[in-house]
């Protein structure tokens, strides 16, 4: 795995970016220079160090004098927390529903696949906004939204694989010699779906990160007191004419993170499934 990573430059970049964000999240609270919520109106709207800043605040301060670097570091926690737990929840929900649909078939399959169809008739962000509107703003709700709006792909994957395995003749054969369904799922279904599910999960995580940022940007994500990249960008937008860095820095943070996760996903796909040579 390591040697495959060494061969893929883009994969290396992706993993490096993701590691950097993880380090940032882990170090916030320890290495952050300031309290992200601490206002300092005497030093508000200080530029970053390369644009008139003093060095006291490496990336400058915002309209309330809060330190941008600290807020970016704390913001990465929300990004990672939502990205990771949203993906896990979506994966669990999707795999379970997909397995039920594929395994039991009949009406369970019909109902679940109808739900999938209906869900696919909702543009992704519309669904997220709609749920956010009804449920209100909280971290748990954002994760729930991520799960609800992302489970469909996993369900289709797992259902498809189970249906395919059911069709195979050797499954009939091992069943006839007394293999239990649980065993078949464990040894014949899971090994086949694990790679596509992992690949789907990385690409899904990138989507969830963008979604969280969009919701925060629109003011419908986590409560406004919590520092998030999307929120910082929304606030920075009002100072675009005078202090463009307020909007540029958080946007860069989001873009790079999403890029890193996507690059990692592409590399994982090549690594786990070399047949897909595109």
């Amino acid at each position: 795995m390591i040697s495959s990573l060494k061969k893929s430059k883009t994969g290396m970049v992706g993993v490096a970016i993701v590691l950097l964000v993880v380090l940032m999240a882990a170090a916030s609270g320890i290495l952050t220079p300031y309290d992200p919520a601490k206002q300092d109106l005497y030093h508000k709207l200080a530029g970053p160090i390369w644009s008139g800043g003093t060095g006291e605040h490496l990336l400058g301060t915002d309209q309330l004098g809060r330190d941008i670097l600290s807020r970016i570091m704390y913001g990465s926690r929300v990004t990672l927390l939502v990205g990771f737990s949203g993906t896990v929840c979506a994966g669990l929900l999707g795999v379970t529903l997909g397995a039920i649909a594929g395994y039991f078939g009949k009406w369970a399959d019909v109902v679940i696949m109808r739900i999938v169809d209906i869900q696919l008739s909702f543009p992704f962000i519309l669904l997220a906004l709609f749920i956010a509107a009804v449920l209100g703003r909280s971290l748990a709700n954002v994760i729930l939204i991520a799960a609800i709006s992302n489970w469909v792909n996993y369900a289709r994957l797992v259902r498809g694989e189970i249906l395919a395995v059911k069709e195979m003749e050797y499954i009939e054969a091992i069943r006839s010699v007394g293999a239990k369904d649980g065993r078949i799922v464990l040894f014949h279904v899971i090994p086949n779906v694990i790679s596509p599910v992992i690949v789907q999960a990385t690409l899904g995580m990138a989507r969830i990160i963008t979604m969280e940022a969009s919701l925060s940007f629109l003011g419908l994500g986590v409560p406004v007191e919590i520092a998030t990249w999307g929120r910082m960008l929304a606030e920075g937008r009002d100072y675009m004419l005078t202090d463009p860095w307020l909007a540029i820095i958080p946007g860069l943070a989001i873009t790079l993170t999403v890029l890193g996760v996507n690059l990692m996903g592409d590399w994982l796909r090549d690594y786990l499934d070399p047949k897909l040579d595109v």
Partner: protein
Amino acid sequence: MAKYLGKRLLQSIIAILGVTLVVFLVLNVAGDPVTLMLPANASFEEIEALKAKLGYDDPVFVQYFRFLGNALRGDFGLSYNYYQPALSVVLERVPATATLALAAFAVSLLISIPAGIVAAVRRNSKTDAVIRTLALLGQCVPAFWLGIMLMLLFSVKLKLLPTSGFESWSALILPAATLGLFSAATFTRMLRSNMIEVMGKEYIDTARSKGLSERVVVWKHAFKNALSSLLTVMGLQIAGLLGGAVITETVFAWPGIGRLLVQSINNSDFNVVEVIVILMATSFVVINFIVDVLYCVVNPRIQLQ
């Protein structure tokens, strides 16, 4: 073909009904619209009285069919913010969104078709590498940031284009570019990989062996085949555009239904939210149906069956 399309039509109708059911259930059962309508200090009796008056104590399915019946007559209730029928509040804004989405779609196709084809035909060249990198970046940049950066560059620094508004054609350029670039990135990647697959097919060798020029081989024999398989994912593209419109409109203060949706959510104007969600989902289902019809038209195999 008629049989297939009939089946798809039925599926589309079921999907739209499903959407209305979900929207209704979420808003009226999970949420509590009556409490939202009254001031925060309303007493329990006042709430109950209003519930009875508006029919909220009827069984859920009775309420749903009443809702559906009203919806079919175009009655979605009043907008609490504008004191007008919710439907007309929304319909007023539809042309703005339609203009934006169409312009963005045009931008997307104008960029992605040449880019995807060039990248596939010159596979592994420098041009291909540049196009692939840009497409990947385009997929990673969130639409709202891209919009702000374009605004920063073209309106603030270069002072070429207005930052917002709806008055002139120039006001359309930045929002359409923002929305279009995002969808162009995905479309370019898909078109490239589809073209590469098609260019490896034997009928492309046949076309070349006939002495046809590379232009005819690429456009007549390869592109049409790549496009016909791309049509199946066109629906998702359009979903992306509709979704992206919500964010782009907010960034550029574009007076369409996307911005109205965000405003209505913030103002708890749920009747308007309801109309917009149903309208967007319905138009998405309808567009997907049209795409399916197109797919049949392009594909002789389905046409004749």
